[in-house]
């Protein structure tokens, strides 16, 4: 059984008096414990796809299941890491990370250790009492990642989380995510428009085309794990990114 399964999923919006097809008959299977990247140009509906899996929006047609359960509304089994972090600015780093646990009324003793471990893992030890406004973009995404992992979700949905960061910070965050994945082995869907990022992080890359958003190709990334940024220099990596680049060029 797939961890995440989409069957013939359509999403249409009404815009300017006519129907716009954002997603057209999408099929997708994500195996448990794998890292899947959805790669596509802006406007191809890849973020819409993530919003449907998260339960923020409902599909116009088709079925979405996560571990066999139909997705009806957002819930803590499907943690989301947002593009702009979406931290609560009135809460400290610590209170942001443990927000889900306090919503559920979990006793502090049950989440305290994990919260501390996660904050250390993402490199924010010592920043627990800072407000989000005092953090850089990369640090805010670290909080967003720790917050999502504290929920112990079945799947982790990441919506271009590093898209707004500068190149250097993005590399650091990719390295962090690789090590976090090695440690927790979550099932991840990762949305990106960056070919390098998709190849570096994912086990499987799904390439989407735009208008209407369709699944165009699926490429298995057979690079060995654990991975590091050294991969970026290797021939196999370059061969894979050339292959994907060719697929995207061919689509236009």
């Amino acid at each position, binding site marked *: 059984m797939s961890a995440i399964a989409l069957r013939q999923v359509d999403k249409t919006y009404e815009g300017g008096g006519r129907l716009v097809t954002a997603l057209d008959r999408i099929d997708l299977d994500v195996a448990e414990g794998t890292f899947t990247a959805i790669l596509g140009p802006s406007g191809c509906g890849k973020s819409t796809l993530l919003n449907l899996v*998260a*339960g*923020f929006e409902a599909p116009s047609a088709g079925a979405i299941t996560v571990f066999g359960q139909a997705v009806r*509304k*957002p*819930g*803590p089994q*499907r*943690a*989301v890491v*947002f593009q*702009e972090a*979406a*931290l*609560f*600015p*009135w*809460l400290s780093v610590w209170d942001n990370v443990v*927000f*889900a646990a306090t*919503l*559920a009324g979990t006793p502090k003793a049950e989440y305290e250790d994990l919260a501390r471990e996660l904050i250390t893992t993402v490199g924010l030890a010592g920043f627990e009492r800072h*407000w989000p*406004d*005092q953090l850089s973009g990369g640090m805010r995404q670290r909080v967003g990642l720790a*917050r999502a992992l504290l*929920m112990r979700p079945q799947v982790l949905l990441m919506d271009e989380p590093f898209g707004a960061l500068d190149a250097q910070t993005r590399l650091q965050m990719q390295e962090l995510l690789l090590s976090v994945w090695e440690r927790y082995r979550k099932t991840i869907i990762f949305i990106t428009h960056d070919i390098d990022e998709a190849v570096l992080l994912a086990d499987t890359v799904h390439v989407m085309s735009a208008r209407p958003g369709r699944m165009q190709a699926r490429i298995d990334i057979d690079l060995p794990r654990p991975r590091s940024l050294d991969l970026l220099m290797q021939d196999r990596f370059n061969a894979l990114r050339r292959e994907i680049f060719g697929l995207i060029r061919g689509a236009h």
Partner: protein
Amino acid sequence: MSELVATSPRTAGPRLPSARPALLVLQMLAVPLAILLVWELSGRLGWIARGILPSPTAVAQGWWQWAVGHDAMGLNAYSGTWLANVVFSAQRVGQGYGLAILVGVPLGVLIGWSPLVARLVDPTVQALRPVPITAWLPFSIAIFGISAFGAIFLIALGAFYPIVVNSAHGARDVNRNLVRAASMMGASPLQMLLRVVLPSALPSICTGLRIGLGIAWTAVIVAEMIAVKSGLGYVLWDAYYIGRMDVVIADMVSIGLVGFLSDQLILLIAARLLRWKQQR
């Protein structure tokens, strides 16, 4: 403030940091002191009749008498009653304003958050809002008679509008991604309202609270001039009738002073509530 004095030419020599604050204070006091001086002189030189405009020193004397004079000083009806009247007015403001907050903040947040509540309540609020609180005076006297309740009603009503409107505005503008983040973390509707919408709306709510407090002081003076027999507003009108212009002016200054102090208090509370915003 520093931008205002930075216009002095660079060639003016080495800066004397210790001299600058004194100069700043002097610049800020120049106009008020000039006004007081002209006012005092115009009284002493007989430009304006004393009964119409008592001089600053006469006002200060009248105020002193009003503040600390002995009750038994025969002819002066106001002697020693200043504090009591300040407390009367402040109490009414506190009660009316408190009522406005208690109703206005929750209602405003609900109007901003729930389209259903907005449809149910907002048209009524918007329809009543253009009626100035002064126009409610006869209505208020008819219902409550000459009593403190009339004043409290007017204060509450006047402060209610800016509080409800700003709270609704804040709740309507909640960042959609924060709502999504809370919903994926499993927030119930009540948790969403209390832990996401309310804190999100807080900056806007504080703006409403500040505007509302200014209106509350306006309302208490108007109400006490007509519908109540005590407080700073009552003394203001009463002193005018018996020709005690020194008390009238001392009263005006007193109103300004307590208004200013209560505004500072709200600012202090807001700064505490919104300290996460000032950390950049």
